[in-house]
């Protein structure tokens, strides 16, 4: 799941393919993803993993790293 999210985020959000990110990179507070783009992440998770994460659980704090995302996805 981590690898899949990493690939999606790299493809969907990063303009520079050489940007180094991993599961611990702070994506929102680090400026790689605009918090407003979380909606596309939410629909990707629903599409790919069949999990509907309620919007209040997806915040700039709770979804800052891929590790955090995986933890939340696994709760559903």
């Amino acid at each position, binding site marked *: 799941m981590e690898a899949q999210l990493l690939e999606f985020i790299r493809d969907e959000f990063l303009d520079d393919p050489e940007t180094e990110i991993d599961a611990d990179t702070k994506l929102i507070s680090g400026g790689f993803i*605009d918090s*407003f783009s979380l909606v596309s992440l939410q629909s990707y998770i629903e599409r790919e993993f069949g999990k509907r994460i309620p919007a209040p659980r997806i915040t700039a704090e709770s979804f800052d790293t891929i590790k955090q995302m995986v933890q939340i996805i696994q709760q559903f």
Partner: protein
Amino acid sequence: MAFSEKLRARYQDILKQILQSGLYKQERIIHDKQGAKVAVEYPPGNAQQELINMCSNNYLGLSSHPEVIKAAHEALDHRGYGLSSVRFICGTQDIHKELEARLSAFLGTQDTILFSSCFDANAAVFETLLDESAIMISDRLVHASIIDGMRLSRAQHDSYKHSDMKHLRQKLELHQDKDIKIIITDGVFSMDGDIAHLAEIVQLAEEFEALVFVDDSHATGFIGKTGRGSHELCQVMGKIDLISTTFGKALGGASGGCISGRTELIDLLRQRARPYLFSNALAPAITMTTCKVLDILQASTKARDSLERKAIWWRKALSEAGFIVVPGASPIVPVMLYNAKLTQIFADELYARKVFAVGFFFPVVPQAQARIRTQVSAAHTEEDLRVARAAFIEIAQKYDLLGKTKAELLNLQL
């Protein structure tokens, strides 16, 4: 007293954090009319200095143009200072209807509605016109006012990579089952100065039956052969469903804005847009003076032609000197330094050489994309631009920046 010591401490802490992270915005105090040269007091308390202004949106030099000032005086004499009413009670005057009709004719649209600012216009449009069955697909670099406007809407949202038409197509395919699809973009992007690919956007919109919204605040008055905006440049006049723009930049620079577009959409905004219904009618001086500005623009393209020539010269001068300049065809010319600290030092060095330009860094622009944004005005003389160029080169030589790559600039030890 409701503002307790505990609360005071809380807000002081927030301010301290902003200061410590280097994001506290210190305003430069100007003691002058807006123009190519301005008397600036900075930091507050210091002596005033006359600087070449390379950071205003006064693209056509109309902010302090004698004919514009005269028109504003006449408007004050004829219609007074304020209207003390919203439009639908007793704030609609013939001058508002005239300006709306003039703007529709200028932009090549069916109807126009005025707002107190373009921020208000963008805050109103998506909430009023879209419901849950709609999807807003926006360019990732749209202006903050559009982002706030989209947040207010019940419609769903998705975004595409900046000006990436392949990505936009993917998003349109993904959301093709939605009742209403609207593609949202700036005409000229304010931080990068590049122009949206409106011809391709319109083509995609036709293919997927989507609406197109363009914020042309950094284009109206000077982009395109007769200054109608980015839709004129891209040859898609009449094909943009909604255009928002401001009178606070090239069109005299006071304040006020509008949404212009399809009759039914504008009419619905007039009925339901909250920033329109619940804020004052545009002041008479701004309303009548904006009509005068349109007269000036329609009588001659001299100012926009001069701006175009100067912007081309300035862009070329910086590129040839070895700076990394974002490619584009607008008078917004960002000089990429990538390194946030370097942009702050560079802006201070410019100030010391009597050139006024500001550094932009995260969170205003993405991480590692720090830049000095320069803006050319028709009011600049060739001498102004030559002096500014010399200052840029002198500073770059002092810090050995010319010809350096992005990685080298980011790794500079300062």
